[in-house]
Structures are given as C-alpha cells and as structure tokens.
C-alpha cells in the first residue's frame, strides 16, 4: 500500500486536517508508505514542506510542486498535478481531507483516472472497505472499492483524531520536476479573491469547545452573546443554517450536513431546534448541551444535558457563573 495525500497548508504550516488524513492513511493496512504532496509557490511553500516532513512519523516523503500555477487552489491545475505525480510514481491510494478544498479537487482527479471516489470516509476497515455516512448521517453505508485504478478517498477528519506525537522523524523532501507538466494552452479559470474572517478564536473544525446559536438569537447584536460565551470557554463559534441565512454570521460558521462537521468535547447549542441536517454535523461531540425555550425541540433528544429556558436569561447567567477557562 502506498498512499499519496494531497496536503493543505497555509502561511508556511501544514493544516491539522492533513495530519488527520495521515492518521487515516495508517488504517489502510500494514507497511503503508505515505507521501504528502504540497503545491503552491514561493517561500511559504518550502517552509510548509519542511514542517510537513516532521508532522507525523509515518510520512515517508514530502513532494513539493512549486509553480505560479499552484499559487491558488484552482481545481483544474491541481487535479492535473495529482494525475501527473501519479503517472510517475505508482500509488494504490490517493487521499485528501473532506474539506471544501479536498471535495473540490479529488472528484476531479478521480474522473481523470476513471475511478469512483469515496467521499467522507468515517471508518476504514481495510485497504478497500470503508464506511461513510449517507442521508445526512441518518444511515451508514459500508462500501467496497473493486476498481483496478488507485482508490480515491476524502477523509472526514473528526473521525481520525491526531494523538500527540512523541517520536520525531524527518521525511525526505523532493521537488517535483514540472518541466513536463502540460496544462491547457490558456488557463480557463482564474482566482479573483477571497474574503476571510479574521478571528482569534480556535478553528471550528478542531476546537475543544463549540458554542452554537440558532435563529432564536434574533440579531447580529444578540449573536455577540454567543461569541462572548465562546471566548470565556476558549471555544469556537458555530451557527445553524437559519442563523447564517438570516445574516447574523458568515457562511463558514455553519455547522451541519452541508457546513462544518464538528466533534468537540463540549458542544453547547442555544436556540437551536435541531433539524436533522444540523444534527448530522454534531453527532460525534462528546457532550452536547442544549438550551431552548421549546421543550419539544428535537435537539433535546440528542443532548446529554438539556435546559428548557430563555437563552436571553441563561447566557448572561452562564457568563457570570462559569469558571474562567483553564
């Protein structure tokens, strides 16, 4: 088994979801070799590559594709790159995390290879058998890949937590020779820009505590109470689709079937009714707390601790009485 992982990196360091994907690759079988493919351009790429080389002891090789063509994560050149690398070295598996990045690029790679990819793998049962959720996580589907080409997977990273690494090992770093990398004559897609929310808070996908608000918060102003509580607990802020649609918070805070999947130690939902699409995104949380005025809200069926009450009274009381974060 030899695995190629399409890595994600940002400002000179490898993203945690890529390390989780490495953990997942280790479940594919004994004696598997793991190569990380990093693409981008310039010094931050080389910095990330050097960090990637020691991000996990099972990484045996870091491949670096340094070119202006990979300055932005456009699916067209990146999918071609994965195919290009695969033609030079044989891989049995090609993986990426189930992030918006991985989900955009890997199916395109799979089509180029004429194989069916498996999206959102939550459990690996062997080199070609996997479990993935369907119907917003209301059923689990066990699939077997029977194709001849490489097996292409995107990994739901909350299902493959990274344990602290004690062993230090440095993988070899090789630069990919791109002189034979052919691209379509003219690039037919262009990156225009990105609006990111600068925030000091931890990342929603990997936070230890997540505090979520629903439409019941009623306004952008009121939603700040959720942010305050998150701050107090050192947690990330999440939102339901309704709260995002109402414009209280930006889209990247949406938790659920089509938003972020979270699995924190503590998940607290305020004014969240618990639509199945939302519950799909929080099921793997260790402890779920729900506060809602409506005692019949479906969220109470999955909550470990429920409190029927008005969030406008409960949140201030929590802010006052909760201990400061450790």
């Amino acid at each position, binding site marked *: 088994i030899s695995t190629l992982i399409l890595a994600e990196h940002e400002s000179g360091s490898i993203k945690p979801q890529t390390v989780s994907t490495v953990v997942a690759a280790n479940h594919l079988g004994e004696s598997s070799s793991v190569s990380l493919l990093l693409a981008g351009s310039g010094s931050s790429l080389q910095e990330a590559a050097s960090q990637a080389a020691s991000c996990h002891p099972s990484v045996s090789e870091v491949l670096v594709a340094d070119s202006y063509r990979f300055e932005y994560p456009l*699916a067209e050149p990146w999918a071609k790159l994965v195919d290009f690398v695969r033609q030079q070295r044989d891989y049995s598996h090609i993986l990426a995390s189930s992030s918006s990045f991985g989900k*955009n690029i890997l199916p*395109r790679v799979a*089509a180029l290879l004429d194989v069916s990819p498996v999206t959102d793998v939550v459990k690996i049962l062997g080199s070609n058998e996997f479990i993935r959720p369907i119907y917003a996580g209301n*059923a689990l589907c066990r699939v077997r890949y029977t*194709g001849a080409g490489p097996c292409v997977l995107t990994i739901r990273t909350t299902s493959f937590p990274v344990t602290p690494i004690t062993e230090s090992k440095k993988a070899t770093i090789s630069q990919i020779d791109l002189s034979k990398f052919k691209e379509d004559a003219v690039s037919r*897609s262009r990156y225009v820009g990105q609006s990111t929310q600068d925030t000091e808070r931890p990342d929603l*996908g990997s936070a230890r505590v997540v505090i979520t608000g629903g439409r019941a918060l009623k306004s952008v102003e009121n939603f700040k109470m959720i942010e305050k509580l998150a701050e107090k607990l050192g947690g990330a802020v999440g939102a339901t689709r309704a709260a995002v649609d109402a414009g209280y918070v930006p889209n990247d805070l949406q938790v659920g079937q089509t938003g972020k999947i979270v699995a924190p130690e503590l998940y607290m939902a305020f004014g969240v009714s618990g639509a199945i699409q939302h519950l799909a995104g929080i099921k793997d949380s260790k402890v779920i*707390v729900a506060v809602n005025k409506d005692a019949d809200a479906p969220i109470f069926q999955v909550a470990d601790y429920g409190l029927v009450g008005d969030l406008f009274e409960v949140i201030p009381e929590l802010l006052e009485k909760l201990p400061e974060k450790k």
Partner: protein
Amino acid sequence: MKILVAVKRVVDYAVKIRVKPDKTGVDTQNVKMSMNPFCEIALEEALRIKEAGFAKEVVAVSIGPSQCVDTLRTGLAMGADRGIHVEASYSFLPLTIAKILKSLADVENPGLIFLGKQAIDDDCNQTGQMVAALLGWPQATFASKVVVLDKDKQSATVDREVDGGLETLSVDLPAVITTDLRLNQPRYATLPNIMKAKSKPIKKMTLEDLKVDTKSDIEIVEVTEPPKRKSGVIVSSVDELIDKLKNEAHVV
C-alpha cells in the same frame, strides 16, 4: 447560449428515513420523493440567467427510473424549456452519471452546466467536478453567487462557499457550476405553469443511445443505522447545568 441542468429525484428532505431490515439500503417505497433541494437551486439560477437575457434555453436532465419524469415536470413547471429523461437504474455511481451528462453535453453543446453541489441521499458531492473533468471544462463548485458577464467575454464570475469564507473565481465558458444553499430561493411552480408544463417536450433516451460505459467499481456491502446517542437529562437551572458540566462531564 443553452444551459443544461441536472436534476435528481430523491427522498424528500423532510422525510425521516428508515434503513431496511435486510441492510441493503434505505426504504424508498411509499416515501415522498422530491427534486433534490440543491438541484432546485441549480435550476432556479439557470432560469434567472435566462430571464436576464444571457441564455436562450434551459434544458433539465434527469437520470433514473420512469418516475424521474415527475421530477422533470416539476422543473418544466418552474420554467425549464424542455426535459431529457435518461432511463436508468437508481444504483448508478456519480462517475456513471457524469459520463452520461458528458455524453449529453457533447450533443447539446451547452454554455453552462448547472448541478446541485450534492444530493441529499448519497451526500456524495462528486458529479459536477467529474463532469467538468471529463469535458475538460473549468469548474466553480459550491456557488453562492453567479454573475454571467457580457456575452462577448464568455465568462462567469462565481463566489464559492469555502471553509475559510468566500472565494471568488472567474471561469471561461463553457463551464460547470455546482450550487450551494445560499445562491437563491427557488420559485414555486404556479398552477398555470404546471398546466403549461404538461405540453412541454420530454425526450426519452437510453444508455445505448448515449454509449456510456456503466461499469461499477463500488459495491455496497451494507447500510446500517448509526449508533444512537444515549438519552440525556433535563436540568432545571443554570447552577445545576454548571455543576453537571464540572463534576459529572468534566468539560469546564
């Protein structure tokens, strides 16, 4: 310009699904079926582009058993000009669906193909990316805003919902766009339009017509119910909640 929109018939989003006792799949007998919500958004966007004068025709395509004609009628009632029904079994993988759509695109020559970013049954989120790859077209997935620029420029500017916020791309046409939830609010079909839709043409096609290889490289071993969370407790006050979180769950 012509726009091709793929629409999938799925179990209605409000239905609580049941896993079959023999673990072969999810029960779809006597269950309300509807157009996949993401596909509705895709169709709505195509219609708006046509209404804005950037497209001449919107063609809805559905692939599956005979009941897919109902889904196509819904699409025609919303405003699509005609439908194409490719008769097939439900068990096709996204790769096969992508090949069918590619083969249709070769015949129809659309300037844009719209698809929902994922279907709410298999949650695969693959087909759009795969059609784009097979056609060698650019892709703009998870769109929350689409602007088709002037006809001479032949390009579209698309805002995409990504993990870190919003990303803006410009893609040359022809291109594939997959739609996210916030792109638009799909219209309801009015009664007169539902009546009118009955006379709009739906062309039937078979896999033989399209010469698509339908080999399958994924087997479904079993479908099971996810483990249930044990039911929790209702606490009566904030103090009790804090106490439980501190001394029972040890999370604060």
